């Protein structure tokens, strides 16, 4: 398509209201009651001039540009703030209105630079358009009066500039920051002529302010005042392609606005069903990694990991790899080979990697990074409800009365969802936060949690059991719901178990360190609802009882009747963009696509018939087991697509030993990541901008990813997997990713109704999409649970083996921050680095004082698994006895200290609890120095001949 800005109806749409019919400029219009006259006019194509109104914030009525005449009403009301009435008769163009508008416009322009021709927003400026629309020809006041034309430019934000000389003080930016983003970073300072936009204090620039660089103000600004630097550098875009963000599981959709093959900017798409026109700093701005100098675009091989890399042709790389894999298979058998699929790649690509492993390598040794994040979600929700997925869509939060957040930090991990959640909280919904740290949701502008339960890390099951105890013993359970929808006998067993006095908040306080009165209050609030919803993240799953906690969450939702309608439910906030999809596509060693167990002969035969190869009926190895087996000598070859297990998986020393013991490690990625230090083959990957396929977000929504530029490495990732498969003798012949989706749909009942053609025509669809739910399933378990009756599972709190003691007296927990993403491979290679140059260790003032530490000091962080050094940040966000860090930087390698402890059911690592000691240090540890030297050595690339 050519370049058109997104339509703007001036004021937000009104939902669920009776229709009202009016006449605008002689045309009849029917819109929901409460709609503005401006929006009603826009819906029939009548654009009323406007400056201060835009359709993602409430009308403000300040610019007086949108005046109209209404029959029977005196004066000229502003159409943006005037709601429609039945039978209203409106004129939008009369000589009187034209004159008034021109007068207003003249005033604006007399204080605006007239450098349109050289302005970055030329031809993409609402002020310019509106001046043309009202027919402005002359400015009678001249340009010599008092003005703001010499106000200074703020270029502090790495992605956009603020040029106050061009500001018309429409306040759209301020309102976008408040209403859309919920950060309240901007204000209008002063009044009248002196009024100006300010980021916090007068002395603050954007970078130094509370601004989180979401870009909402930039999108809202009608002028060039807030404008992307890239637009200044590259120029106005000339076409736009809708695609899906490749960072987190929110799954925001964007318009990739292009000039030739160059991406100018990513603008959140207003029709995006997950993001509704909003974005965060990662998806909006942090795409520069796609062109970073570190990116490898030519295949490389080496005999041994001690050799330098040798750049070769695709042909040679694929032949070398296929020969090695085949030789290993002949010598050690199929079960010595395996693969890891990527939660960052598309469904189609992930499906092909597991197909290659099962159908080509001949084993079920396929796993995915969900192993280290949400595998307990799959286990727990399948067991209790019958589906390994969240129950709601994101819109559901608009109907929620009580929000329970446990082990998630939405403002940093899932920022666009956090903005939607804050909006709901500002409307009066209540909030309970269960987290060892005082995350931002506990208290931020206009948000204050009713309860923050700062539990001891590792005691989630105890907390949830205590909540269940209060709900059951105080008669707050929804027994009518349970009788109708769940297995009543199992419920009674569970109710008896949780009612035991040993599960009371008073007794468990000794374990959880949460005051019993707070816990009782929180439990009562949750039970009171009427619509209570649970949102959770990795602070639930990455524990030795991760699966038990998911079961306990499901129990709580069922016991209070909070399943099966909008506003309620169990909502796992998924980490990576396609972690839901990777799980759906059969990336686990025990199940085929659609969560069907590998031992099920009926399902296997479907795949065997389609693929023409037998499938091993035995479950394969999980990632940690692959590494164990490699050290044992029974596992020899691993194909890793788009993951960096050396950095992201626990106990780095163990991962390194496993990788080093293998004969063929293939890394298929954008960069020479840490895992590639142990690889024999490097296959360059393509970015999400360079491929076609689908991602599935945390709401089970399957959305299109569209190729906007050619792959720098020559191939989309699925094509590379296909090259390898062909070289191993498999007769694959896909010519487009849509054919892979067709195969997925043929083999997977919950995807039966999904195809690229339908997604192109209808936008994202939420699985299951099949005969029973042809339009998809925004909310699940509406008329009954997928498994039949909801299953209550008794969950006993079992303390982790990881205990503090004299040598390791503190508990380390890990997390992430807004501007960085996972192991940081992408975000570290963008200007986002200005917000997070290094991982810091948060430590409570008391613990810091005992150790003589202050903020900025180098500290040694040691556990029984290993040690590293990083700088300290002294803060009371963490409780005494708890320390916290992120894992975005390879130099820190926080996972050197995490242990091999893992979830009992899924082996998801216990990242959230490690007993550690912290002490003063003078700089990087020996291990860090050795590692850096080894990484340098192993990244050598032989000069081309």
């Amino acid at each position: 398509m050519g370049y058109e800005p997104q339509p703007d109806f001036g004021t937000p749409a009104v939902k669920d209201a009776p229709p009202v019919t009016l006449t605008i400029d002689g045309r009849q219009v029917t819109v929901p009651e409460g709609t503005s006259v401006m929006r009603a006019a826009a819906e029939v194509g009548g654009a009323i001039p406007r400056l201060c109104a835009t359709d993602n914030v409430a009308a403000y009525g300040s610019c007086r540009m949108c005046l109209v005449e209404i029959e029977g009403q005196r004066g000229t009301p502003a159409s943006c703030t005037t709601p429609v009435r039945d039978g209203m008769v409106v004129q939008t163009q009369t000589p009187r209105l034209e004159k008034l508008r021109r007068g207003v416009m003249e005033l604006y322009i007399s204080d605006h630079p007239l450098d349109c021709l050289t302005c970055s927003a030329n031809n993409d400026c609402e002020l310019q358009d509106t001046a043309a629309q009202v027919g402005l020809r002359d400015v009678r006041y001249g340009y010599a009066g008092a003005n703001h034309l010499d106000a200074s430019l703020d270029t502090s934000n790495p992605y956009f500039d603020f040029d106050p000389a061009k500001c018309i003080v429409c306040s759209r930016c301020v309102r976008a920051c408040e209403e859309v983003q919920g950060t309240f970073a901007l204000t209008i300072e002063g009044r009248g002529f002196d009024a100006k936009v300010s980021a916090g204090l007068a002395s603050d620039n954007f970078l130094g302010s509370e601004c989180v660089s979401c870009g909402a103000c930039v999108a809202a600004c009608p002028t060039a005042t807030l404008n992307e630097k890239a637009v200044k550098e590259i120029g106005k875009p000339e076409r736009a392609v809708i695609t899906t963000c490749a960072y987190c599981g929110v799954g925001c959709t964007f318009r990739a606005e292009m000039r030739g093959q160059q991406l100018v900017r990513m603008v959140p798409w207003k029709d995006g069903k997950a993001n509704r026109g909003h974005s965060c700093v990662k998806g909006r701005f942090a795409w520069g990694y796609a062109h970073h100098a570190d990116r490898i675009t030519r295949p490389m091989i080496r005999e041994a990991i001690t050799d330098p890399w040798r750049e070769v042709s695709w042909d040679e790389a694929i032949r070398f790899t296929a020969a090695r894999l085949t030789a290993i298979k002949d010598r050690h058998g199929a079960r010595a080979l395996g693969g890891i699929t990527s939660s960052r790649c598309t469904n189609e690509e992930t499906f092909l990697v597991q197909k290659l492993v099962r159908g080509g390598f001949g084993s079920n040794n396929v796993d995915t990074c969900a192993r280290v994040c949400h595998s307990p979600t799959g286990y727990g929700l399948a067991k209790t409800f019958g589906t390994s997925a969240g129950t709601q869509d994101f819109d559901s939060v608009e109907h929620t009365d009580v929000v329970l957040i446990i082990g998630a930090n939405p403002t940093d991990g899932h920022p666009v969802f956090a903005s939607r959640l804050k909006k709901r909280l500002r409307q009066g919904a209540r909030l309970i936060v269960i987290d060892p740290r005082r995350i931002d949701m506990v208290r931020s502008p206009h948000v204050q949690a009713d309860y923050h339960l700062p539990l001891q890390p590792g005691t989630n099951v105890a907390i949830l059991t205590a909540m269940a105890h209060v709900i059951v013993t105080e008669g707050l359970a929804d027994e009518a719901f349970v009788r109708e929808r769940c297995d009543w006998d199992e419920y009674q067993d569970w109710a008896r178990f949780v009612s035991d006095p040993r599960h009371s908040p008073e007794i468990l306080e000794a374990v959880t360190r949460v005051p019993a009165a707070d816990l009782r209050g929180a439990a009562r609030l949750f039970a009171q609802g009427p619509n209570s919803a649970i949102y959770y993240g990795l602070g639930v799953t990455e524990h030795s009882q991760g699966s038990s906690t998911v079961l306990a969450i499901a129990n709580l939702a069922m016991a209070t009747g909070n399943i099966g309608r909008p506003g309620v439910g169990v909502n796992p906030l998924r980490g990576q963009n396609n972690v839901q999809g990777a799980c759906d596509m059969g990336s686990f060693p025990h199940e085929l696509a659609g969560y069907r167990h590998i031992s099920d002969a009926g399902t296997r035969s479907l795949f065997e018939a389609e693929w023409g190869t037998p499938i091993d009926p035995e479950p394969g190895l999980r990632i940690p087991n692959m590494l164990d087996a490699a050290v044992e000598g029974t596992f020899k070859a691993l194909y890793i697509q788009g993951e960096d297990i050396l950095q992201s998986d626990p106990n780095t020393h163990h991962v390194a030993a496993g990788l080093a013991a293998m004969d063929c490690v293939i890394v298929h990625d954008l960069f020479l990541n840490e895992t590639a230090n142990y690889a024999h083959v490097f296959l360059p990957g393509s970015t999400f901008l360079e491929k076609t396929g689908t991602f599935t977000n945390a709401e089970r929504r399957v959305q299109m990813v569209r190729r906007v530029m050619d792959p720098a490495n020559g191939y989309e990732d699925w094509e590379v997997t296909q090259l390898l498969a062909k070289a191993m003798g498999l007769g694959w012949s896909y010519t487009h990713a849509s054919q892979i989706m067709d195969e997925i749909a043929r083999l997977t009942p919950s995807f039966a109704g999904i195809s690229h053609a339908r997604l192109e025509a209808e936008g994202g669809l939420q699985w299951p999409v099949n005969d029973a739910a042809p339009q998809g399933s925004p909310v699940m378990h509406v008329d009954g649970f997928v498994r039949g009756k909801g299953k209550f599972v008794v969950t006993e709190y079992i303390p982790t083996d990881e205990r503090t003691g004299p040598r390791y007296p503190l508990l380390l927990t890990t997390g992430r921050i807004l501007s960085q993403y996972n192991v940081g491979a992408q975000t570290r290679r963008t200007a986002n680095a200005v917000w997070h140059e290094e991982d810091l260790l948060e430590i409570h003032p008391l613990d810091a004082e005992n150790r003589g530490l202050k903020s900025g000091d180098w500290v040694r962080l040691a556990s029984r698994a290993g040690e590293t050094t990083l700088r300290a940040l002294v803060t009371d966000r963490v409780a005494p006895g708890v320390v916290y860090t992120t894992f975005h930087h390879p130099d820190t390698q926080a996972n050197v200290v995490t242990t091999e402890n893992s979830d009992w059911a899924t082996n998801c690592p216990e990242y959230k609890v490690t007993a550690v000691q912290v002490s003063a240090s003078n700089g990087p540890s020996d291990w860090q120095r050795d590692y850096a030297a080894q990484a340098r050595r192993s990244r050598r690339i032989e000069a081309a001949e």
Partner: protein
Amino acid sequence: MSGGTTANLVRMANQIAANLAAHGADAAAAETAEHIARYWDPRMRAALREVDPAQLSAIARAAVARLDPAGAASPPSD
């Protein structure tokens, strides 16, 4: 299998058993066996059968005794 890996398997089996223990000893042994059959690779199951039973909890021991020596995974039950 080497000491390290065997220790890992023992720990995993005991951990599964402990987490299912609240369902009663008999049910827990059956569920532990089923869990291992469903999720463990055959070489891990074979190695577990070889470990010194004294290292296993009572429930884990009972579960190992129930593992099908032929190594076939049991069909899914939910």
